[in-house]
């Protein structure tokens, strides 16, 4: 194992890690927004929109992210629409993550009993107030584990970004292996980089889940 080599290229991994995290952060943010909006459409059974969401979720969850990215990066330019690698990464991740987050929110909303809505209605609360104060807080505590799992999943999915020429962690590692044949060193740094990003999130998820449970009993 070439320690000097590892030391030399740590800054490169830090840079790639920052890029990966930046895109992942934006992708997760938009995923949450899409998921929240789409789950409300499903919850309120909005006509037409509901079908759109269902089709979107199925389409997005049943095609690999790499294929979605190829479509954005290589397909759309043929139609005259050209995005940068970074933008493709954010759009692709949001498209995929939005569908998973929709499911996470939807399953949470579906666990809130009808009587909760009815008793809130009987107290005169409006539809919006019922969602905000009664249904959403209860649904969220059920959804949190799935949401955190989705975040971890989405960060891991960024490893396919190298396929659209994004200089992410995977891209850097493949580069170093190709240039210097330092396979073990490059892969070790890759694994450690992902662990550094994901372990804290995983621990945070566990803590949140436990706290949510405790506050109920």
């Amino acid at each position, binding site marked *: 194992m070439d320690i000097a080599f590892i030391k030399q290229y740590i800054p490169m991994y830090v840079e790639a890690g920052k890029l990966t995290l930046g895109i992942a952060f934006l992708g997760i943010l938009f995923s949450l927004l899409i998921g929240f909006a789409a789950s409300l459409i499903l919850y309120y059974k909005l006509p037409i929109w509901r079908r759109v969401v269902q089709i979107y979720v199925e389409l997005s969850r049943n095609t690999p992210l790499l294929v979605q990215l190829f479509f954005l990066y290589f397909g759309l330019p043929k139609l005259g629409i050209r995005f940068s690698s970074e933008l493709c990464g954010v759009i692709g991740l949001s498209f995929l993550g939005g569908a998973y987050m929709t499911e996470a929110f939807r399953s949470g909303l579906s666990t809130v009993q009808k*009587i909760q809505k009815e*008793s809130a209605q*009987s*107290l*005169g*609360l409006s539809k919006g*107030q019922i969602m905000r*104060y009664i249904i959403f807080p209860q649904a969220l505590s059920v959804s949190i584990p799935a949401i955190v799992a989705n975040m971890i999943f989405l960060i891991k999915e960024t490893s396919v970004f190298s396929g659209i020429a994004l200089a992410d962690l995977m891209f850097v590692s493949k580069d170093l292996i190709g240039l210097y044949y330092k396979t073990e060193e490059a892969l070790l740094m890759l694994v450690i980089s992902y662990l550094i990003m994901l372990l804290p999130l995983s621990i945070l998820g566990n803590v949140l889940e436990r706290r949510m449970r405790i506050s109920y009993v």
Partner: protein
Amino acid sequence: MEEIVQEQLLEIKDLEKSYEDDSPVLKDISLSVKKGEVVVLLGPSGCGKSTLLRTIMGLERIQGGEILLEGKNIVGKSEEARKERQNLGMVFQSYDLFPHMSILENLLLAPMKVQGRKREEAVQEARELLARVHLSDKENAYPSMLSGGQKQRVAIIRSLMMHPKLMLFDEVTAALDPEMVREVLDVVMELSEQGLTMLIVTHEMGFAKAVADRVLFLEGGKILEENTPENFFQKPDTERAQQFLQNFSYVSHRHVGR
């Protein structure tokens, strides 16, 4: 002799309700409730009495007829109807407290968010009501820490916080352990003594007899009989009501000591 003219609070005219498959649940229901009156709805399960309460509360769609509170329409999704329905309170069979909020927060939510009342003032009223139902020590507890009877008492005062003109009780003791029924019904009795107008669905016959000013007997989505509690429980007019009441009395077939 002077007759006391009591104001009609609730008026239902020719109410029709059926489910999506067209099977009728309520047929041609007309009734009125005067201010301060306690009306008890009795009838076999599935007769439509719970549905009737739910339609009054606006939780069910109706196919025909009118429901008026002090002469104003309370049916439908319009803002006016929703505003008027804020004068109604309802307590359900299943414990319906909000599990993610403390007891005090449960009591404060609607007065503050719907009526826009000040927190301090609402807290004061909440504490007075909690004391009245002997739950002062529970204000910071969460619903899951309470017994069924305690939860129902909180549910009742949560509705009272909104100062309803009419309270609807839908089998509020049906899911309770027998020893907890009393503590809840005592609260309802107390409210009737204070002159609160109530429409009550119950299976507790002793309670019904004690609390009711008037009894309505429903079957098959229709009002079959309307009577005073004294007459109804001693000698109901209809045969169906007689049969119904027999379900609640037991004749001993044992011949011990003969």
